[in-house]
Protein backbone atom coordinates (compact mmCIF):
# COMPACT_ATOMS: atom_id res chain seq x y z
CA UNK A 1 0.00 0.00 0.00
CA UNK A 2 2.63 2.55 1.02
CA UNK A 3 4.84 1.69 -1.92
CA UNK A 4 1.96 2.44 -4.23
CA UNK A 5 1.50 5.92 -2.83
CA UNK A 6 4.81 6.97 -4.30
CA UNK A 7 7.12 5.66 -6.96
CA UNK A 8 6.41 4.36 -10.42
CA UNK A 9 2.74 3.46 -10.12
CA UNK A 10 1.97 6.82 -8.56
CA UNK A 11 3.88 8.60 -11.31
CA UNK A 12 2.05 6.64 -13.96
CA UNK A 13 -1.31 7.52 -12.45
CA UNK A 14 -0.45 11.20 -12.40
CA UNK A 15 0.82 10.95 -15.94
CA UNK A 16 -2.35 9.36 -17.24
CA UNK A 17 -5.18 10.65 -15.05
CA UNK A 18 -3.69 13.96 -14.03
CA UNK A 19 -3.86 13.02 -10.36
CA UNK A 20 -2.85 10.10 -8.19
CA UNK A 21 -5.27 7.66 -6.62
CA UNK A 22 -4.35 8.82 -3.15
CA UNK A 23 -5.07 12.43 -3.97
CA UNK A 24 -8.43 11.48 -5.44
CA UNK A 25 -9.54 9.81 -2.23
CA UNK A 26 -8.16 12.76 -0.28
CA UNK A 27 -10.32 15.02 -2.41
CA UNK A 28 -13.36 12.91 -1.63
CA UNK A 29 -12.56 13.19 2.07
CA UNK A 30 -12.25 16.97 1.71
CA UNK A 31 -15.64 17.03 0.05
CA UNK A 32 -17.14 15.34 3.11
CA UNK A 33 -15.45 17.81 5.42
CA UNK A 34 -16.61 20.81 3.40
CA UNK A 35 -20.17 19.52 3.15
CA UNK A 36 -20.44 18.80 6.86
CA UNK A 37 -18.97 22.19 7.71
CA UNK A 38 -21.50 23.96 5.50
CA UNK A 39 -24.38 22.03 7.02
CA UNK A 40 -23.22 22.74 10.57
CA UNK A 41 -22.72 26.43 9.83
CA UNK A 42 -26.26 26.61 8.57
CA UNK A 43 -27.67 24.91 11.66
CA UNK A 44 -25.60 27.06 13.99
CA UNK A 45 -27.53 30.06 12.70
CA UNK A 46 -30.88 28.41 13.35
CA UNK A 47 -31.77 25.60 15.71
CA UNK A 48 -28.33 25.25 17.28
CA UNK A 49 -27.77 28.92 17.96
CA UNK A 50 -27.26 28.39 21.66
CA UNK A 51 -24.33 26.01 21.36
CA UNK A 52 -21.05 27.28 22.74
CA UNK A 53 -17.97 27.53 20.55
CA UNK A 54 -16.45 24.51 22.18
CA UNK A 55 -19.57 22.47 21.56
CA UNK A 56 -19.74 23.66 18.00
CA UNK A 57 -16.17 22.58 17.38
CA UNK A 58 -16.99 19.26 18.95
CA UNK A 59 -19.97 18.82 16.66
CA UNK A 60 -17.93 19.80 13.63
CA UNK A 61 -15.24 17.24 14.32
CA UNK A 62 -17.13 14.25 15.68
CA UNK A 63 -18.00 12.50 12.36
CA UNK A 64 -14.35 12.41 11.36
CA UNK A 65 -13.12 11.07 14.65
CA UNK A 66 -15.76 8.37 14.63
CA UNK A 67 -14.07 4.97 14.36
CA UNK A 68 -16.44 3.62 11.74
CA UNK A 69 -15.97 6.63 9.50
CA UNK A 70 -12.21 6.55 9.88
CA UNK A 71 -12.19 2.93 8.76
CA UNK A 72 -14.51 3.72 5.86
CA UNK A 73 -12.28 6.51 4.60
CA UNK A 74 -9.18 4.38 4.95
CA UNK A 75 -10.84 1.59 3.02
CA UNK A 76 -11.85 4.07 0.35
CA UNK A 77 -8.29 5.26 -0.05
CA UNK A 78 -6.94 1.74 -0.18
CA UNK A 79 -9.53 0.75 -2.74
CA UNK A 80 -8.73 3.76 -4.91
CA UNK A 81 -5.04 2.98 -4.87
CA UNK A 82 -5.17 -0.78 -5.31
CA UNK A 83 -8.16 -1.19 -7.57
CA UNK A 84 -9.96 1.70 -9.19
CA UNK A 85 -7.06 3.84 -10.37
CA UNK A 86 -4.49 1.09 -10.60
CA UNK A 87 -2.70 0.89 -13.93
CA UNK A 88 -1.96 -2.75 -14.80
CA UNK A 89 1.65 -3.79 -15.18
CA UNK A 90 1.02 -4.81 -18.77
CA UNK A 91 0.13 -1.26 -19.75
CA UNK A 92 2.59 0.98 -21.52
CA UNK A 93 1.71 4.66 -21.36
CA UNK A 94 1.57 6.44 -24.74
CA UNK A 95 4.69 8.50 -24.04
CA UNK A 96 6.64 5.34 -23.19
CA UNK A 97 5.54 3.40 -26.26
CA UNK A 98 8.56 4.50 -28.26
CA UNK A 99 10.90 3.37 -25.53
CA UNK A 100 9.06 0.07 -25.20
CA UNK A 101 9.65 -0.65 -28.86
CA UNK A 102 13.26 0.50 -28.56
CA UNK A 103 13.88 -1.68 -25.51
CA UNK A 104 12.28 -4.67 -27.20
CA UNK A 105 14.95 -4.54 -29.89
CA UNK A 106 18.47 -5.59 -29.13
CA UNK A 107 19.87 -2.12 -29.46
CA UNK A 108 23.55 -1.76 -30.20
CA UNK A 109 26.05 -0.08 -27.97
CA UNK A 110 26.92 3.47 -28.82
CA UNK A 111 30.52 2.62 -29.72
CA UNK A 112 29.41 -0.02 -32.17
CA UNK A 113 26.97 2.42 -33.72
CA UNK A 114 29.71 5.01 -34.10
CA UNK A 115 32.01 2.45 -35.68
CA UNK A 116 29.34 1.40 -38.17
CA UNK A 117 28.56 5.03 -38.90
CA UNK A 118 32.21 5.75 -39.64
CA UNK A 119 32.33 2.78 -41.98
CA UNK A 120 29.26 4.04 -43.80
CA UNK A 121 30.72 7.52 -44.06
CA UNK A 122 33.89 6.07 -45.58
CA UNK A 123 31.81 4.11 -48.06
CA UNK A 124 29.90 7.25 -48.98
CA UNK A 125 33.17 9.09 -49.51
CA UNK A 126 34.52 6.38 -51.81
CA UNK A 127 31.28 6.22 -53.75
CA UNK A 128 31.37 9.96 -54.27
CA UNK A 129 34.95 9.74 -55.58
CA UNK A 130 33.89 6.97 -57.92
CA UNK A 131 30.94 9.04 -59.05
CA UNK A 132 33.21 11.99 -59.80
CA UNK A 133 35.48 9.77 -61.89
CA UNK A 134 32.53 8.42 -63.82
CA UNK A 135 31.36 11.96 -64.39
CA UNK A 136 34.77 12.96 -65.80
CA UNK A 137 34.78 9.88 -67.99
CA UNK A 138 31.35 10.74 -69.31
CA UNK A 139 32.50 14.26 -70.15
CA UNK A 140 35.50 12.87 -72.01
CA UNK A 141 33.26 10.59 -74.05
CA UNK A 142 30.91 13.45 -74.81
CA UNK A 143 33.81 15.60 -75.96
CA UNK A 144 35.05 12.83 -78.23
CA UNK A 145 31.58 12.40 -79.67
CA UNK A 146 31.38 16.11 -80.37
CA UNK A 147 34.74 16.09 -82.19
CA UNK A 148 33.77 13.12 -84.31
CA UNK A 149 30.43 14.72 -85.03
CA UNK A 150 32.18 17.80 -86.41
CA UNK A 151 34.51 15.60 -88.50
CA UNK A 152 31.54 13.69 -89.84
CA UNK A 153 29.82 16.90 -90.90
CA UNK A 154 32.97 18.24 -92.60
CA UNK A 155 33.72 15.08 -94.53
CA UNK A 156 30.13 14.85 -95.65
CA UNK A 157 30.43 18.36 -97.00
CA UNK A 158 33.67 17.49 -98.84
CA UNK A 159 32.07 14.46 -100.45
CA UNK A 160 29.15 16.57 -101.62
CA UNK A 161 31.43 19.20 -103.17
CA UNK A 162 33.42 16.59 -105.07
CA UNK A 163 30.28 15.26 -106.73
CA UNK A 164 29.02 18.69 -107.72
CA UNK A 165 32.30 19.65 -109.52
CA UNK A 166 33.48 16.54 -111.46
CA UNK A 167 36.24 16.63 -114.06
CA UNK A 168 34.94 17.45 -117.54
CA UNK A 169 36.64 17.51 -120.98
CA UNK A 170 34.92 20.76 -121.80
CA UNK A 171 36.67 22.43 -118.93
CA UNK A 172 40.17 21.43 -120.06
CA UNK A 173 42.46 24.15 -121.17
CA UNK A 174 42.74 24.39 -124.97
CA UNK A 175 45.84 23.00 -126.49
Amino acid at each position, binding site marked *: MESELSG*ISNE*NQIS*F*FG*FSAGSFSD*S*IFNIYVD*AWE*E*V*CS*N*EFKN*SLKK*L*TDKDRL*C*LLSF*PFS*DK*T*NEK*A*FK*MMKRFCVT*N*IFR*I*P*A*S*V*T*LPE*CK*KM*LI*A*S*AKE*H*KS*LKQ*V*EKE*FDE*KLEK*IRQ*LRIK*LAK*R*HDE*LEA*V*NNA*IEVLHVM*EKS*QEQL*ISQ*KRIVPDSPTRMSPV
Partner: protein
Amino acid sequence: MSQRKEVLNQMLDTTLEIFTKSLLESQDLWKMSSHRKLNMDKAAVDAVMARMAKSTQQKVLEKTDQMIKENSVYELFDDMEQLTRESEELNKQLGREMGYNPVNAKRDVALHLSETAEKMLTEADAEIEKIEKELKAEEDEIARRKQVLKELATIVESQQQKL
Protein backbone atom coordinates in the same frame (compact mmCIF):
# COMPACT_ATOMS: atom_id res chain seq x y z
CA MET B 1 -20.09 1.15 -18.92
CA SER B 2 -16.61 0.79 -17.63
CA GLN B 3 -16.04 -1.61 -14.78
CA ARG B 4 -13.93 0.95 -12.96
CA LYS B 5 -16.81 3.39 -13.16
CA GLU B 6 -19.19 0.90 -11.55
CA VAL B 7 -16.72 0.07 -8.80
CA LEU B 8 -16.03 3.73 -8.13
CA ASN B 9 -19.72 4.60 -7.86
CA GLN B 10 -20.36 1.61 -5.64
CA MET B 11 -17.50 2.59 -3.36
CA LEU B 12 -18.68 6.19 -3.13
CA ASP B 13 -22.23 5.09 -2.37
CA THR B 14 -21.04 2.72 0.33
CA THR B 15 -18.84 5.35 1.95
CA LEU B 16 -21.66 7.88 1.94
CA GLU B 17 -24.05 5.33 3.40
CA ILE B 18 -21.65 4.58 6.26
CA PHE B 19 -21.11 8.27 6.92
CA THR B 20 -24.82 9.07 6.93
CA LYS B 21 -25.53 6.16 9.23
CA SER B 22 -22.91 7.34 11.70
CA LEU B 23 -24.52 10.78 11.75
CA LEU B 24 -27.98 9.40 12.37
CA GLU B 25 -26.86 7.05 15.10
CA SER B 26 -24.73 9.61 16.85
CA GLN B 27 -25.64 10.60 20.40
CA ASP B 28 -23.22 13.52 20.61
CA LEU B 29 -25.73 16.27 20.01
CA TRP B 30 -28.20 14.76 22.44
CA LYS B 31 -25.54 14.57 25.11
CA MET B 32 -24.53 18.14 24.46
CA SER B 33 -28.10 19.36 24.58
CA SER B 34 -28.73 17.51 27.83
CA HIS B 35 -25.56 18.78 29.43
CA ARG B 36 -25.88 22.37 28.28
CA LYS B 37 -29.61 22.61 28.96
CA LEU B 38 -30.55 23.68 25.45
CA ASN B 39 -34.19 22.90 26.10
CA MET B 40 -34.39 20.45 23.22
CA ASP B 41 -36.13 17.12 23.61
CA LYS B 42 -35.02 13.89 22.01
CA ALA B 43 -37.39 14.19 19.09
CA ALA B 44 -36.16 17.68 18.23
CA VAL B 45 -32.52 16.58 18.41
CA ASP B 46 -33.22 13.61 16.18
CA ALA B 47 -35.02 15.87 13.72
CA VAL B 48 -32.05 18.24 13.58
CA MET B 49 -29.59 15.39 13.07
CA ALA B 50 -31.78 13.86 10.37
CA ARG B 51 -31.98 17.19 8.60
CA MET B 52 -28.22 17.66 8.85
CA ALA B 53 -27.52 14.15 7.62
CA LYS B 54 -29.77 14.62 4.61
CA SER B 55 -28.21 17.97 3.72
CA THR B 56 -24.72 16.54 4.06
CA GLN B 57 -25.61 13.61 1.85
CA GLN B 58 -26.98 15.90 -0.83
CA LYS B 59 -23.98 18.23 -0.75
CA VAL B 60 -21.50 15.37 -0.90
CA LEU B 61 -23.25 13.88 -3.92
CA GLU B 62 -23.27 17.21 -5.72
CA LYS B 63 -19.63 18.00 -5.00
CA THR B 64 -18.47 14.49 -5.88
CA ASP B 65 -20.28 14.50 -9.20
CA GLN B 66 -18.85 17.91 -9.97
CA MET B 67 -15.30 16.79 -9.21
CA ILE B 68 -15.65 13.66 -11.32
CA LYS B 69 -16.99 15.68 -14.25
CA GLU B 70 -14.30 18.34 -13.95
CA ASN B 71 -11.55 15.72 -14.10
CA SER B 72 -13.22 13.63 -16.82
CA VAL B 73 -12.69 10.56 -14.68
CA TYR B 74 -15.13 8.34 -16.56
CA GLU B 75 -13.63 9.21 -19.95
CA LEU B 76 -10.19 8.44 -18.57
CA PHE B 77 -11.44 5.07 -17.39
CA ASP B 78 -12.57 4.29 -20.93
CA ASP B 79 -9.22 5.48 -22.27
CA MET B 80 -7.44 3.26 -19.76
CA GLU B 81 -9.40 0.23 -20.90
CA GLN B 82 -8.55 0.94 -24.52
CA LEU B 83 -4.90 1.55 -23.65
CA THR B 84 -4.84 -1.73 -21.74
CA ARG B 85 -6.11 -3.63 -24.77
CA GLU B 86 -3.62 -1.93 -27.08
CA SER B 87 -0.76 -2.55 -24.66
CA GLU B 88 -1.58 -6.22 -24.29
CA GLU B 89 -1.72 -6.58 -28.06
CA LEU B 90 1.63 -4.82 -28.40
CA ASN B 91 3.12 -7.01 -25.68
CA LYS B 92 1.94 -10.07 -27.57
CA GLN B 93 3.66 -8.84 -30.71
CA LEU B 94 6.90 -8.10 -28.90
CA GLY B 95 6.79 -11.25 -26.80
CA ARG B 96 6.70 -9.44 -23.48
CA GLU B 97 4.48 -9.66 -20.42
CA MET B 98 5.11 -6.30 -18.82
CA GLY B 99 4.64 -2.86 -20.23
CA TYR B 100 7.47 -0.40 -20.23
CA ASN B 101 8.31 1.24 -16.91
CA PRO B 102 10.96 3.95 -16.82
CA VAL B 103 13.05 2.52 -14.00
CA ASN B 104 16.30 4.29 -14.73
CA ALA B 105 16.88 7.71 -16.23
CA LYS B 106 20.23 6.64 -17.65
CA ARG B 107 18.61 3.73 -19.39
CA ASP B 108 15.94 5.96 -20.87
CA VAL B 109 18.57 8.34 -22.18
CA ALA B 110 20.50 5.39 -23.60
CA LEU B 111 17.37 4.19 -25.37
CA HIS B 112 16.79 7.61 -26.88
CA LEU B 113 20.42 7.80 -27.93
CA SER B 114 20.25 4.40 -29.56
CA GLU B 115 17.08 5.52 -31.31
CA THR B 116 18.90 8.57 -32.63
CA ALA B 117 21.92 6.49 -33.59
CA GLU B 118 19.72 4.02 -35.45
CA LYS B 119 18.22 6.94 -37.31
CA MET B 120 21.71 8.15 -38.18
CA LEU B 121 22.63 4.74 -39.58
CA THR B 122 19.38 4.62 -41.51
CA GLU B 123 20.08 7.98 -43.08
CA ALA B 124 23.63 6.94 -43.95
CA ASP B 125 22.25 3.82 -45.62
CA ALA B 126 19.78 5.95 -47.56
CA GLU B 127 22.60 8.22 -48.72
CA ILE B 128 24.67 5.23 -49.84
CA GLU B 129 21.73 3.83 -51.76
CA LYS B 130 21.13 7.18 -53.42
CA ILE B 131 24.75 7.57 -54.55
CA GLU B 132 24.85 4.00 -55.81
CA LYS B 133 21.75 4.70 -57.86
CA GLU B 134 23.35 7.82 -59.33
CA LEU B 135 26.51 5.85 -60.04
CA LYS B 136 24.58 3.20 -61.91
CA ALA B 137 22.75 5.82 -63.97
CA GLU B 138 26.06 7.48 -64.78
CA GLU B 139 27.59 4.18 -65.86
CA ASP B 140 24.60 3.42 -68.07
CA GLU B 141 24.97 6.84 -69.66
CA ILE B 142 28.67 6.24 -70.26
CA ALA B 143 27.93 2.91 -71.92
CA ARG B 144 25.31 4.49 -74.16
CA ARG B 145 27.58 7.37 -75.15
CA LYS B 146 30.44 4.98 -75.88
CA GLN B 147 28.13 3.10 -78.22
CA VAL B 148 27.31 6.37 -79.97
CA LEU B 149 31.03 7.15 -80.15
CA LYS B 150 31.74 3.79 -81.77
CA GLU B 151 29.03 4.27 -84.39
CA LEU B 152 30.22 7.76 -85.16
CA ALA B 153 33.80 6.52 -85.53
CA THR B 154 32.58 3.89 -88.00
CA ILE B 155 30.78 6.53 -90.04
CA VAL B 156 33.81 8.79 -90.12
CA GLU B 157 36.05 5.94 -91.28
CA SER B 158 33.56 5.10 -94.01
CA GLN B 159 33.61 8.68 -95.22
CA GLN B 160 37.39 8.69 -95.30
CA GLN B 161 37.27 5.61 -97.51
CA LYS B 162 35.09 7.48 -99.97
CA LEU B 163 37.47 10.40 -100.04
